[in-house]
Every structure is written in C-alpha cells, then in structure tokens.
C-alpha cells in the first residue's frame, strides 16, 4: 500500500445535503490523503450515497468540498473528470447496449489523445482479462461482477487521481465481491487515491487504511481500519456480532 502523503487530496467540511426539506447529510467533515484508501461505512439510508454524489457534484450541497486544494462546490460535474476525480456510480451504471470496448472508450470521452486512449484500453484489458474475452459483447450481457469491473475500468479510462466508488459489492455473489475488491486494491496499488462507500464493513476495513462510520446523516466514528475492526460499536452494528 502506498504511503499516504501529508496533503489531503479531498477535504469535506460541514457538508450538508437536503432533498426538499429532508436533510440526508447533516454537516459531515472528512478528508482523504493523497494515495490513501479510505472507506465510508454505514447502513442503508445513512447518507453515504448522498455524500458521494455531492462530492462528484451530481447533487447540490452546502458546506465546502476541496479537491486538490481547489474548492469544487460550484463546479458542474462534467468538468471533474478533467481534474482527475472519477465516480463509479451505485448500481454500476454501465452503458448496457454498448459493447465493452465502447464502454471503455466512452470513459475517455473528455480526452482527445486517440493513441493514448487505445493504449489505455489495452492496459485495462490486461488488468481485467475477463473483459478482454468479451470485448465486442454488449455490456448488458455481462454478469453483475463483470459489470462492476467494467464500470471501474471505464472510470480508469479518465485517468483519475481520485476514484469514488459507490457500493461496489452491491448485489454480487461473495466470490465476485472478492474479485472486485482485488481489482480495487490493484487500482490503489497503481497510486490512485480511493474513497469507498460500503455496507460490507468487514471487507472494506480489510482493504482500507482508515474509515468513517456514518449514521443518519452524521459521521459518528472515525478511526484507523484496525481500530474500527476492533471497535465494539462497529462490530455490533455492522459485523453482526
């Protein structure tokens, strides 16, 4: 695992998200260091996805979001990928009727360097050989786990510095979850900073160095992964003990 540097790549300060009159995220603050792998844990409806969507500017939020030292609260979502911030949305969000190769090239939509794009596609195929075999198949025919890998691969096509992952284990068979997490770890090993939202706390804490626990819109616990794994409250609430 890469050694975290001292500067935070992502910094959220008093982040709040409202849907109409309902507050989904009630003033959370957290940070992710360069090269770090951090997770945000919590039950259904805790506000994890809302937090992630706010970070990717898919929804509006108040408070402050700083990415690479720049305040990004007011920026439209589509410019973030140019800055190296990529989101793998919840439920995978692949382009079901496009082929796998087309999905990957779509991930490089904002780039103009054709030769480099082709090289990146090959690089991702080497990393995800299962996708290479199905290169010209329609993405909708892939299994859930393969779709998740494709979604991650597509995000990597944008050459991100920070990857936001929303529940990559959702709806997958345990064996597939393990494979997806292997992929995530290898992405992290390449130096990509990762902020991971997960319900599967055990798995997330095993691969991450730090974690935040979110409950009804607030961050209630923040600690290193080993400490969280040992924490009685975490064990009771998320590890089924």
């Amino acid at each position, binding site marked *: 695992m890469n050694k975290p540097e001292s500067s935070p790549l992502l910094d959220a300060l008093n982040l709040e998200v409202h849907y109409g009159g309902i507050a989904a995220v009630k003033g959370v603050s957290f940070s992710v260091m360069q090269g770090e792998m951090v997770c945000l844990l919590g039950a259904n409806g805790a506000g994890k996805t809302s937090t992630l969507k706010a970070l990717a500017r898919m929804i509006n939020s108040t408070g402050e979001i700083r990415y690479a030292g720049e305040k990004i609260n007011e920026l439209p979502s589509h410019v973030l990928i*140019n800055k190296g911030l990529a989101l793998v949305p919840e439920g995978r969000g692949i382009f079901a009727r496009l082929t796998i190769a087309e999905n990957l090239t779509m991930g490089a939509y904002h780039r103009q360097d054709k030769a480099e794009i082709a090289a990146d596609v090959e690089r991702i195929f080497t990393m995800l050989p299962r996708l290479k075999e199905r290169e010209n198949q329609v993405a909708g025919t892939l299994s859930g786990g393969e779709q998740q890998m494709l979604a991650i691969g597509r995000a990597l096509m944008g050459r991100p510095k920070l990857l936001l992952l929303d529940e990559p284990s959702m709806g997958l068979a345990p064996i597939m979850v393990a494979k997806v997490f292997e992929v995530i770890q290898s992405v992290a090993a390449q130096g990509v900073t990762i902020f991971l939202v997960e319900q599967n706390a055990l798995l997330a804490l095993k691969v991450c160095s730090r974690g935040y626990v979110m409950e009804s819109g607030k961050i209630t616990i923040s600690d290193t992964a080993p400490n969280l794994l040992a924490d009685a409250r975490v064990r009771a609430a998320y590890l089924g003990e």
Partner: protein
Amino acid sequence: MKIPTNFLHNKGNIAPMIALAIALIALPFALALVGTAWVRITNFAVLFVLLSLGLNIVVGFAGLLDLGYIAFFAVGAYTYGLLASPHLGVHLPFWIILPIGALVACIAGAVLGAPTLKLRGDYLAIVTLGFGEIVRIFMNNMAAPINITNGPKGIAQIDSFQIGPIDFGKVDTLGGLIVSGPIKYYYFLMLALMVVVIINGRLKDSRIGRAWVAIREDEVAAKATGINTRNIKLLAFAMGASFGGLSGGMFAAIQGFVSPESFILNESIMVLAMVVMGGMGNIWGVIAGAVLLSFVPEILRYTVEPVQMAIFGKMWIDPEVLRMLIFGLALVLTMRFRPAGIWPESRHRREMTAAAK
C-alpha cells in the same frame, strides 16, 4: 435486407445507388400518370420522413421521449405562413423564411428543453405532450385582441416557392413533359431530404452522437464520464426542433394554407410511431417507417372499398373505419414480431436478440 447501410461512406458498389437515384428522379412522373394526388401523397410522405428524422434525434439518438414534436412543425409552418401571405402583407422569399422557421423552431426546442432537463421517460412525455397542445391552442387563440394567427380559420393564400422564373404553384412544360407544382416540390423535398440524411449520419458518428447514446443508456454514468448532459440534451431538442421547423415551412408552402387542425396530438403520435416502428436510432429504418406509415393508410383508402365490393358485393364496414382497423392491426403485429422496429439500429437489435436468448 442487405441494402448498404453505410451509404454515406460506401465508395465501392455504386451501381445500386445510381439505379436508386434514377428511380427516385423518375418516380413523380410515373406517379403523375396514376394521378397527381399520388405525387402529393408522396410529397407528404417525404415531409413525414423529414419530421421522423428530426424526431429520431430526440427519441432515437438521445432517448428523450417527446410527444409534442408536431409543435415544432407547427412553428415552422406558421412562421412561413406569416412571412409569405396576404395575412400580414409580408411576402419574403422562401430561401429566407425556411431558415428563419428552422431558427424559430430551434429556439422553441431549447425553450421546451430547458425546463425538462431533469425529467425522463413518462414524465418527460407528459410535459412534451402539454407543450404540443399549448402551441396548438396558442395558434387557435392568437386571433384577438391582435390578430396574429387568424385563429381556427388559419392562414390562407400562402405563397408557393419561387426560384427565378419557376413558380412552384404553377404547371410548366419542359420539352413536352408536364411538370406540375407537386412534382417541383418533390424534387425540392428530395434535395432537402438528402441534406438532412447526410447531417443525421454525420451527427450519429460524431462526438455529440456518442454523447447522446451515453445519455440514452445511463445519464448518471454519462455525467460521470465527463459529458455535459445539460447542453447535450438541449442540443438534441434544438436540433430535432430545427428539422421540424424546416419541414413545417415546406408544408405551409406546399399546402398554401395552415390551420391549427393540422397539428393535433395525433400527428405527434404518428411521427413517433414512424420512428419506433421503423427502428429507433437507425436513419434508414426511420425512413422506411415513415414511408410505410405514410403510404399504407393511403393505399388502404383506395383499396378497401373496391375489395369489399368484390368479395361481398356490398359495403359491410365503413371504409374509413376498416382502414384504420387494418392499419392499427398492422402496427400491433409489427411491434409484436419486430419489437425493435422493421429495420433497427444494430445496438437495439443486439439487445433484443440478447434478451430473446
């Protein structure tokens, strides 16, 4: 069906192209032998092809369900009617008004698009349906206090096209050949069709085209890949609307008359049916759908009565009722057995065959 689908890039086999071109050039004269009415029917079919290609950008490429598309046709038609008729006493030449009509429709498209950016599917359909009705009702009521549209009476005596000495409203003879007004319009429409097809083909393969497909497939993912979904969706509405406006202008000139009655909801649904039945997203499929759905009801109009008389010796069912009954049944059967359309886009076909396995 192995007709070259890559028409625009096909350089090798040119013989079928030439044959098709000759057939299309000769067509109006052949039809004129049967009756000028058939030339008119063909012209309307081409107009519907143009409309369908416009709607295909919105529905087929970008996946935005628009049930009020005929409104842009109306906007183009009324723009032409107002700027080339005794109603306001303005008589501008067509080559000025057609672009103006397309531009006005384009703006109308953006105006409709802007508030609906966050809507999808059924919700978008309802809003666009409302928009289509609002435009029609506007045309119906803008006769007082200031008479702009002349209300339900419509605008009459609209100028026909005029290119130099050639008046599209009059019959000419060219070396013994009788060239009627509808025949002249036919050639103009074919020219317009060629331009629109080329623009459509280019758009589809462009960066914008890929962005539309991405939005159609998954909007959140499209955003995440760096597509400015707001602008790209607005562009789809605006471009689709411009084609609608352009067709509307030609419609007004051909008819010489426009009234709100021509722009009812039924027409929007008809154009949508052409796009869906032909094969959403595929330019050639959409053309096929529009041609079929324009001609089949007309052919039935002329055949239902004699066939009934021949079989039963008398009229059992009112021909108008039977005509729509057969037409509706044909639609149902087509969608049952070719759910992706007669000639679907390869992507849709891939999905449909994958689903069948």
